[in-house]
């Protein structure tokens, strides 16, 4: 966790401010908040990932994980996922879909596009915190990525 302060470890793609607050609080409870970048729609998410637009000057290092909601304004979560996983420079970034949808079709579509995990956001906040802890433990601490 001794990383450069400017380097983003988690990219949170979420349009609902309540969900943002809940998610950040869950992350905070698990001490994972210091390097979170929040973007509010699909377009911003892609700008960040591809280092363009208002994120063209962001540090070169890619985020360690992307937490992606599916229901987003402008460009949908599935489209963002497709874009990220079809480009060599962003392909290797782990993407975790965090959504309210239990629809099987969403799940299948996401895995087809190369998602690394699919998490249905629990309504019960305690369970949400548990889920965030589990994924943080796995993707940020246990999982090893190239160049670490």
């Amino acid at each position, binding site marked *: 966790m001794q990383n450069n302060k400017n380097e983003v470890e988690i990219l949170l793609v979420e349009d609902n401010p*309540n969900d943002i607050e809940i998610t950040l*609080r869950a992350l905070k409870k698990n001490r994972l908040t210091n390097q979170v970048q929040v973007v509010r729609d699909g377009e911003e998410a892609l700008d960040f990932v591809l280092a363009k637009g208002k994120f063209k000057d962001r540090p070169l290092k890619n985020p360690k994980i992307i937490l992606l909601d599916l229901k987003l304004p402008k460009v949908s979560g599935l489209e963002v996922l497709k874009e990220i996983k079809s480009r060599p420079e962003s392909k290797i970034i782990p993407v975790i879909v965090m959504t309210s949808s239990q629809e099987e079709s969403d799940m299948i579509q996401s895995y087809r596009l190369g998602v690394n995990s699919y998490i249905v*956001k629990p*309504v*019960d*906040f*305690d369970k949400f915190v548990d889920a965030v802890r589990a994924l943080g433990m796995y993707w940020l601490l246990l999982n090893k990525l190239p160049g670490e």
Partner: protein
Amino acid sequence: MKKFHVIIAMQLLLLVIQANPNTRQTINIASEPDYPPFCLVDEKGNAAGFSIELFRAAADAAGLRVNVRIGVWNQIKRDLISGRIDALPLVGRTPEREELFDFTIPYISLRGAVFVRRGTSAIHSLQDLKGREIAVMKGDNAEEFIRREGVSEKILTTNTFEEAFRELAAGRCDAVITQRVMGIRLLEAKKIKSVIPLDLQLPQFRQDFCFAVREGNRELLALLNEGLSIIIANDTYQKIRDRWFRPVIKERYALKDILIIALYILIPAAILSTVFWIAVLRREVRRRTRYLNELVAKHANTLESLRKQKLLLNEMERASKIGGWEYDAESGNTIWTEGTYDVYGVSKSGFDPLSYNRYISFYRLADQKKLDRVFRRILETGGSFNLVLRLNPPDGSGKWIRTRGQAEMINGKVKRVFGNIMDITEQIQAETELKEMKNELEGQVRERTAELRKKIGKLDRSQKAMIYMVEDLNRITGELKEERRKLNLSNRELEAFTYSVSHDLRAPLRAVDGFSRFLQEDYSGKLDGEGKRLIQTIRNSAVKMDRLITDLLELSRISRRDMHLGDVDMKEVVESVYHETANENQLKAFSISIEKMPAVKCDAQLIKQVWKNLIENALKYSSKSKTKRIEVGSRIDGGSIVFFIKDRGAGFDERYKDKLFGVFQRLHKEDEFRGTGVGLAIVQRIIHRQGGAVWAEGAINKGAAFYFTLPRKTGKLPEREDENAE
């Protein structure tokens, strides 16, 4: 003198019938150039000679004009045969020529002689000529004589006798045979001195010379005969003869000469005319005899062929059962052929058809009248008839006959009626049989046609019914398509709706719960016990609502999910679901008995859901009961299998059992048993989709029993829409 009278009488007779000179007819004849003194050519190149002059005189007497042309004998002979000329003036009558020509009475008779070179001594008789070369004019009767008598095989033929004599004089042949007088005259005329006639009589070569016409030209023959008779009778013949033969006779007339003349001319002339008349008569007799013989032969032939034809006719009549008859109107006599006797069935010897009244009685009474009426009419007015009648003849047979008759009229009166009668019994029988067969066939055809019509009618009706059915089907298919379209549309709408529910209803709930939790965490010091309870209630409600949403989405998903049928071992499914559903405490507390159940064809995932919901219920509603026991089993009921699960739990009031399977319907209070009221609705939906039925039995605190059926191992299960489903 008697002969003279005869001649004069004949002359007068012939003058009377002499032809009218105004209607003179011209005939063409031809003459040889060198047969002196009979036929020769004078200084002017015209035909002359005894025969020519005689022919002209005879023709003139018979009222004919004559054109004479000159030609070689062999040629002019052929001309007469072919009809290019009408007559020849000098033709010796020989048997060979009888077939080619008809001859007039002979007008001169001459004997032949053998001419040799002067000094020839070896020839004294006809026999001496054997093997010697003899010259003759081609086609002359001398040639015919030599061949006929076989005088010699070596014959040298020449075109004229002059040529023959020159051949002889030149030594290229041994002899020439020809008429003595002509030969001598020819040798004189041509001054051939080296050839002389032998003093040898040739009785077989006596020549009667006649005029000749073409075979069958009897008219000309009669005219020429007539003319000859006239000129013989009126001394013209004698004058012509004197003129042409005088030079042969000595110039001076001594008594001896006169006697000789009498001897050689007058007496022969008298004899000649007698001979001539005898010949004419003999010839006529021969001709008549021949004619009569021919007639007799012809008659015999005719009789024979008639006899044969009658036999044939009888045979034909017998074979065809036909007979001929003839009724003579004048005598009233009737003649029958044998066939007619056969048709009537009477014998020829035993029946005489003469009486019309007798044979008409052979007919049946009605037919007698008919025949009588027709016959009488025919006799009066003529005409013909053609009747088919029925016989009742002596032989008792009821024969059918056809008789045709026809009247022959002479001067407007019926002379006779003739016709035929034919036994047509077999024909009538055959016709009757044919008619019967035809009627039968027609009957059959009518029957079959009626049957076919009926069938066609039926077919028409069923075809119409089919058409209506097809129309209905088309209409229904159209409606179904429309329904399906609507259904697809509403399914899509439903999907969109559930998707929205899934996302958008959850987010605020999450916020409610989350922020309540923040309140608990951040402001717990400021809240009293009641405040904390209220916040907890909010959080519970949010979670409850989340469960409701989840269950509703599950119900919706189950309705839309595709089914995948397969063989399912129900006991295995129930065991595994039970162990997944029950927690450790429950597993310890409950006793479950699962019977062996028949394999069934269904969707394994969906049927798992059914058992899960039912087992959950059983566990939940038995939790407060003393007896914690679950029984699972099945029984076969007709084409279905009935599965059941029974517990000894809280049970329910049977009065409300219909509400059990409704969505959000609950028979227990939330604080008694937690639940959303969707579980049994899902069970019902799944069972209905697989063609089964669901029901429940129970009583309060006596436990509950849930039943559902599935069809027995069918390949495909009917998809049934649940009418009660929301």
